[in-house]
């Protein structure tokens, strides 16, 4: 297995939330497995329907979506999932929760035993990673969205940059970030650096994964502000559709997911890093009251007691 190079940034910042926060999947026949042709070029992200083909979200029921940033480079066929965020949306209450998983979190990977969750992606792509996390959390995950470095950059640039409030000086040569505190509009490369930055933080990857969750929330906020309504969402999807690889999903799914996400006020989104023991470079064990946290999350995608 290739050595980890960079944790992928939040891959999905906007779209996912947009879509992901919806987002969604896309039409099966449509693109299933096809490489994105393209004039408009590059593939920004891949949407995979994990659930059965006839699955549609039950009205009012919570929907869970796994957002993955992988470390893929052009030509790579095996990639790790380094940015891992499970988003739960409750359409009835219009609330959402993002569970951020450090990449080294040790989980039972079906067929591979206890292993770092990041490796699940290398073993079996988004599907195995979704199965791994679904088993751990106890929530069904019908959709997964995955992006890589270039896709993330393209996505952020495609939405005209991402507005954030940099909480403190961020400077890390390896991550490629050099930002002053305060409000800023990040282009794709800058946003990737923001999402990868960890060495300057004492809590390392934990802070990084939290920052990635923050980017997702900011992406949602921006998309909500810029969205001009349902028809605007159609236009957004047409653009995304030119840059998406779809596996088992269609534009109708994507629209439904996007609308689901855009209905949620970012103020009603909780961003929570799952509790793990300290350490780095090796497996991080889930710790604390993680079981209670997962149960609280899985029942309705909203944290009532955490």
């Amino acid at each position: 297995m290739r050595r980890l190079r960079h944790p992928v940034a939040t891959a999905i910042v906007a779209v996912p939330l947009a879509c992901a926060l919806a987002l969604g999947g896309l039409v099966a026949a449509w693109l299933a497995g096809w490489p994105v042709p393209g004039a408009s070029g590059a593939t920004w992200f891949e949407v995979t329907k994990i659930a059965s083909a006839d699955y549609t979200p039950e009205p009012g029921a919570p929907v869970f979506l796994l957002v993955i940033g992988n470390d893929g480079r052009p030509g790579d066929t095996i990639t790790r999932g380094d940015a891992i965020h499970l988003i739960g949306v409750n359409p009835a209450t219009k609330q959402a929760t993002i569970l951020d998983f450090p990449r080294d979190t040790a989980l039972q990977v079906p067929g591979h035993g206890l292993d770092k969750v990041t490796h699940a992606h290398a073993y079996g792509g988004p599907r195995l990673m979704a199965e791994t996390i679904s088993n751990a959390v106890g929530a069904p995950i019908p959709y997964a969205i995955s992006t890589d470095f270039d896709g993330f950059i393209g996505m952020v640039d495609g939405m005209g940059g991402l507005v954030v409030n940099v909480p403190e000086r961020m400077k890390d040569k390896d991550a490629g970030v050099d930002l002053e505190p305060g409000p800023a509009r990040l282009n794709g490369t800058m946003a990737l650096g923001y999402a990868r930055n960890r060495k300057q933080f004492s809590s390392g990857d934990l802070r990084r994964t939290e920052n990635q969750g923050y980017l997702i929330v900011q992406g949602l906020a921006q998309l909500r502000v810029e969205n001009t309504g349902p028809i605007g969402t159609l236009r957004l999807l047409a653009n995304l559709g030119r840059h998406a690889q779809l596996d088992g999903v269609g534009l109708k799914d994507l629209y439904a997911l996007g609308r689901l996400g855009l209905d949620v006020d970012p103020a009603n989104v909780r961003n929570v890093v799952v509790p793990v023991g300290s350490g780095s470079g090796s497996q991080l064990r889930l710790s604390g009251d993680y079981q209670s946290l997962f149960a609280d999350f899985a029942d309705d995608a909203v944290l009532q007691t955490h």
Partner: protein
Amino acid sequence: MAFTTRAAARAIGAGSLLVVVLAACGGAGASEKAATTTTRVGSTMTIEAGTVTVESAGAPLGLADADRDAVVETVRRYVKAATVDPLLGEGVGDLAPLLAATVGSGLTPADRAALVDEGLPESTGTVEAVVAPVVLTALADRAGAIDLVGAGLDVTVTAKTARGPVVVHRAGELILVRDGAAWRIESFRLLVDRSGRGLSGGGATTATQGNS
């Protein structure tokens, strides 16, 4: 530009009302011409399509005439059921055939208030509906399939009631999803203003926005 139309409504007998549907220029194109249709209660009111745009993830393409017409037909039936029927004393029409399954169960009271006009007084005279041509925006996937169409809605319905006039103006967007040969409303964002002395409260204006 919207303009008014006089319904040549001649009530023939008690309860006989006329529904006048006017198509007004919606601002999306000068080529749109206003059309006026006058029909008796219970017959079909007419709404016309305005400009049609297809947002495509693949090659450019158009919206088939059959789909365009089917979408507009759903919009027409919706306007009639939501506003005209209540003013005719029939209550809100049956929306079940017009709404996708995902819509009905998820409506909040505010959303429903934006979607339909419940509790309107019955008209004692002419019911007029001025409807701008419905601007359509379709979404096509890379293979050219179109399963979602957005419809821009701008309709003003006026009626005389025993307590005075009532005016309902509803504007916004509907998203329709293909269901076989039919198209159903999958979601909406609407703003509705109801005004006039005929409303309970004596002339109060209420504005309600809803999405689903």
